[in-house]
């Protein structure tokens, strides 16, 4: 019924983040926030960021979406806390590449915990579920309010 690719995509790690995200909350105070929309499927994520100078010190998100998109948002929050804001666009590019190809070459250490999400490359129509929160994060740091999966 469920092949290896499915079992890798819905691994215990991803399922835990997808069902009981640790960062799935609106921050009481935040310095930047943006919404990501996937107009084709209705997924939506709002990302909140608190900064200390150029460092991201706290993140949170509110989302409606599938387990993959919520797991991706949660893992993203874990990965970027403590990172320099200037590093985020590069990390987002690496995540996009990993989601599309399954490979993360010269992968930043911060992204190691996202490795299970690379399984999504076997499911082309689901790649956007992984990349949407990152689009919103990049938009928020650039001062934007909205991002789209398209």
């Amino acid at each position, binding site marked *: *019924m*469920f092949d290896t690719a499915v079992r890798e*995509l819905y691994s215990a790690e991803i399922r835990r983040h997808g069902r009981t995200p640790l960062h799935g909350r609106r921050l009481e105070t935040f310095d930047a926030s943006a919404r990501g929309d996937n107009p*084709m*499927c*209705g*997924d939506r994520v709002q990302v909140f960021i608190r900064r200390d100078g150029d460092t991201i010190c706290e993140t949170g998100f509110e989302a409606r*979406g599938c387990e*993959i998109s919520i797991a991706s948002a949660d893992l993203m929050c874990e990965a970027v806390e403590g990172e320099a804001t200037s590093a985020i666009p590069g990390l987002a590019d690496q995540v996009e590449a990993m989601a599309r190809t399954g490979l993360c070459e010269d992968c930043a250490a911060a992204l190691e915990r996202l490795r299970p999400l690379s399984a999504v490359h076997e499911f082309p129509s689901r790649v956007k579920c992984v990349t949407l929160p990152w689009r919103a994060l990049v938009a928020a740091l650039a001062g934007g309010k909205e991002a789209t999966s398209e």
Partner: protein
Amino acid sequence: MNVMTRPPFDVERIRADFPILQQLVHGKPLVFLDSAASAQKPRQVIDAMVQAVETQYANVHRGLHWMSERTSDAYEGVRNKVARLLHAPDPREIVFAKNSTEAINLVAHSYGRGVMQPGQAVLISEMEHHANLVPWQMLRDAAGIELRVARISDAGELDMEDVERKLEDGRVGLVAVTHMSNVLGSVTPAARLAALAHTHGARILFDGSQAAVHRTVDVQAIGADFYVFTGHKLYGPTGIGVLWAKRELLERMPPFMGGGDMIDSVTFERTTWAEVPHRFEAGTPPILEVIGLGAAIDYVEAIGFDAIAQHEAELVDHTLARLAGVPGLRVLGSAQDRGGVFSFTMQGAHAHDVATLLDRNGIAVRAGNHCAEPLMRRLGVDSSARASVGIYTTPGEIDALADALLRIRDFFA
């Protein structure tokens, strides 16, 4: 073909006509439950298009040569077939468009801006596809036409009292509603709606994208003024849709697009329009697609809409019964009169995750908002999965769906 001489409905014989149904997906036999998005094509349609392009192809309405004349005859012959399919009195009332969306945009432009007056209103319903919503919003913003939205009940049926309330002041010039919801499967009471619209001085358009696939459509018996459908859901090719409208209305409507084939005479100062329907068919039309649509109409008419409707009614009963046996599954809408479209949510599992797991088992369903975002909001769901049936769907495929959903439920438990 006489109904009495028609062979009995044999789903296995029909399936043999659809080459794609032999395909494996992820190593599993394809269970195609996404016909409401676009249906598969029988060999007869594929062959008709190939044969046309190999043996009888030229541009239509132009060439003074044998090939063009034959192609024009074939093209215009399909207009007759479409008129017969819809029980329209006059083939000149059939306008070929790209799809239902373009046909509705044509009406919004040519009737909405060309005939309706600012201050009038268009009445749609809460269960419209974006194709029967966005063109009217554009008309509202461009031409000062009000847009009204009739409510639906929680069962997914049109609230006829609300329809009447919104017609009462006599300012609605056009009612534009679905004949069958692409999300809920609800079939609207077309003749009753048309009578109600006419009582209040409004014209009525039906979006028949779903309905025309599943049952006999008689635009005269309904009392419709406009009716649109699309070829690719009727087992025909993409790129060809149909607008039917009463001739007296088409005569009053200015063209939608300008170009070749839609003119009578052209000077740099002035152009006069061709007669209907050519006035609305600017440029080289989708010739091969029209021929494919003709073959699709021949195909479904040979099976017969009575048999198609009977097959579908059995599948509807079977599907609802099987889905009711999946704990935590909720089918959206429970209209009395419904077709073979089933949108559902599953407790504890998001629609996209459900659709992905079904796909890995060879079962194709749609997931998302089904181009009906306001309806999803009205129903209080963000997203749903949707299974929809076609003439080739078997009860065994519905069993495969239900069995897979039971396992998916366990997977997500």
